[in-house]
C-alpha cells in the first residue's frame, strides 16, 4: 500500500513556481529520502502534503485519503518535524508537549509516558522554559513533539541542523526503531550522506521537478568522490586522464581535480605513485551530482 501518493502535484506561489507535476509513491514501511538543494521544492512538497499550502493543480493522498478533504483526520497519524522549530515563548517544555498532545485522540496518559521516555532518551529537561533552550535543545522538543502520538507516518524537513553528531546518531537510531515498528518516514535533506545513511529509496528534486527516483543502493553504486591533487612537480596528465571512472577533470598549474565514480582502489593505487604535496578526497556537493544526472539524462 502507498502511504503517500502524489499525482502531478503542482504549486505556484502567484507566478513563481514552487513545484511542478510531482509524482511520488511512498510505500508503507519505507524510509524515503527527498533530496535537493535549498529552494528546490522539498519544503513546498511537504507543506502541501500537510495542508499548510494548497496545491495549484494535481492531487495527493496520504493513507489513501485525499490530503485536502481529510486533512485533519490524516494528521492524526502524522508526525512532523520542521527544519526550524518555533514554539510559544514563556511555556515550559512539558506544557508545550502536553498542549501538543492534547490535539490527538490518543489516551493522554499514554502520550505523557511517551513524552517522558523520549525526553530521557534525548536527554532533555522537561521543566525548562522554551525561551531558555539552546537551538539544539529546541530541536529535541521538535523531535518529541513529532513523535509523542506514535504516528504511522513521520515527515521530516531538514531535521538534523543544530543537533550535535551524538544526538544526530541517537535521533537516527530512534527513527530506525520507529521504522522497524512499521512506521513510514519521509526524510528531506540537502545532505546526501545523511540520506544515504538512513533511506531505502530517494527522490532527487531540482527546480521544482523530480529528477530521479532511485534505490539508495543503486545510488550508492555510483558513489562519487571529488579528488583534489596537488603535485610536487610536473603532472602526469596522461595517467590521470586514463583512470577509469574519472569525469569533470580539470588541470590548473600543479593541481588536478576530478570526480571519481565507483571503486576508489584503482585511483588510490595510482595516486600512491605520484609525488604529491597535498591530497583532498571529499563528498561532491549536490550540484555536481545533479550535473551528473543531467548529463546522463541527455545521453
Amino acid at each position, binding site marked *: 500500500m502507498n502511504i503517500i501518493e502524489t499525482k502531478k502535484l503542482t504549486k505556484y506561489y502567484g507566478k513563481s513556481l514552487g513545484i511542478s507535476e510531482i509524482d511520488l509513491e511512498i510505500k508503507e514501511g519505507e524510509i524515503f529520502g527527498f533530496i535537493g538543494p535549498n529552494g528546490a521544492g522539498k*519544503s513546498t512538497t511537504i*507543506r502541501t502534503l500537510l495542508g499548510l499550502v494548497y496545491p495549484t493543480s494535481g492531487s495527493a493522498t496520504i493513507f489513501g485519503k485525499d490530503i485536502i478533504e481529510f486533512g485533519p483526520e490524516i494528521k492524526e497519524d502524522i508526525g512532523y518535524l520542521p527544519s*526550524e522549530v*518555533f514554539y510559544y*515563548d514563556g511555556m515550559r517544555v512539558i506544557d508545550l508537549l502536553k*498542549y501538543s498532545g492534547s490535539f490527538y485522540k490518543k489516551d493522554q496518559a499514554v502520550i505523557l509516558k511517551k513524552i517522558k521516555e523520549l525526553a530521557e532518551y534525548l536527554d532533555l529537561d522537561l521543566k525548562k522554559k522554551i525561551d531558555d533552550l539552546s537551538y539544539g535543545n529546541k530541536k529535541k522538543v521538535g523531535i518529541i513533539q513529532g513523535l509523542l502520538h506514535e504516528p504511522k507516518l513521520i515527515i521530516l524537513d531538514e531535521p538534523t541542523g543544530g543537533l550535535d553528531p551524538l544526538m544526530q546518531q541517537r535521533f537516527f537510531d530512534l527513527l530506525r526503531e520507529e521504522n522497524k515498528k512499521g512506521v513510514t518516514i519521509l526524510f528531506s535533506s540537502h545532505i546526501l550522506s545523511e540520506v544515504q545513511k538512513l533511506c531505502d529509496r530517494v527522490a532527487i528534486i531540482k527546480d521544482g521537478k523530480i529528477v530521479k527516483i532511485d534505490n539508495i543502493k543503486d545510488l550508492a553504486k555510483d558513489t562519487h568522490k571529488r579528488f583534489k591533487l596537488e603535485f610536487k612537480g610536473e603532472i602526469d596528465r596522461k595517467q590521470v586522464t586514463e583512470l577509469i571512472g574519472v569525469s569533470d577533470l580539470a588541470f590548473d598549474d600543479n593541481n588536478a581535480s576530478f570526480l571519481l565514480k565507483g571503486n576508489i582502489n584503482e585511483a588510490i593505487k595510482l595516486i600512491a605513485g605520484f609525488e604529491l604535496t597535498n591530497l583532498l578526497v571529499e563528498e561532491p556537493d549536490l550540484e555536481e551530482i545533479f550535473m551528473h544526472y543531467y548529463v546522463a539524462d541527455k545521453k
Partner: protein
Amino acid sequence: MNIFLREIKAYRSSTLIWILSLCTLVTVFLFMYPAFTRDVDATRAIMANLPAAMRDALDISLANFFTIYGFFAYIFTFATLAGAVQAMNLGVGIMSKEDSGKTVDFLLTKPISRFKVFTSKLFASFGLILITNTVFSLTSYIVAGIVSTDGLDIQIFSLILASFFLIQLFFLALGILFSMLIKKIKSPVAVTLPTVFGFFIIGMLGSIVGNDNVRYICPFKFYDLNYVIDKGLYEINYLYIELVVVFIAVIASYLIYSRKDIRAAS
C-alpha cells in the same frame, strides 16, 4: 477547547490590566461627579463659555451633562476609546501572533481543521471581551449607584454600558479582518492605534462640523448617548450597520483563513 483555553490563558494578564485600568478610570471620574454637581450653576456657566465646537467634539450636552448619565457619558468617550484599542489589539494579535511567532506550523500540522482553529480563537477573543464588559459594567453600576443622588435608571445606564460592548465588538471584528488582510504584522499596536484614532478623529471632526453622514462610517458615533439619555433607546439603523459589518468581517476573515497558504518561516 484546548486552543480556546490556551488563548484565554495567554491573554489573561493583559486583559486583567485593561480591566483594572478601565475600572480605575470610571471610578476616579465618577467620584468627581458630586464635586461637579455641588454648584451646578457655576459649572454650567463655565461649560456654556466653552466654544460650542469643543462641546460638540467632546459630546457634551448642556442639558444632560449634570445628570449622572450625562456625566458618565462624558467619561465614557474616553473609556470607549481605550476599549476600542483593547478589542482591536486583541483581534489583530490573536490571529497574527501565530504568524509573527512562527508557531503557525505547530498549530496547523495538528489534527484540527482551520475552521476549528479560527472559531476557537474567535470565541476566546469574544470571551475575553465579554469578561472585560462584565467587570467593567458591574464596577460602573456600583460606583454610579454610590455617587448618584437620585437613583439610577437601569435601562438608560445599561444601554450606555452596552454601547461599550458593541464598540468593542466592532473593533474586535475589524482587528481580525485586518490581521487577515495585512501581511507580516510585527506588532498589533502598529495596526490598532492608527485605525482606532483615525476613526475617533473622523468622528470628532464630524461632530464639530455637524456632518451627520460621518456617523454611518464611524463606530464611535453609532450610539449617540445623548439620544439614549433622552429617549432610552438606540437609533436602530446604526445597530444594524454594526451587525452587518461585524458579520461580513468575520465571514470574510474565515474565508481568507481557510484558503491561505502558510509559507515557510524565513
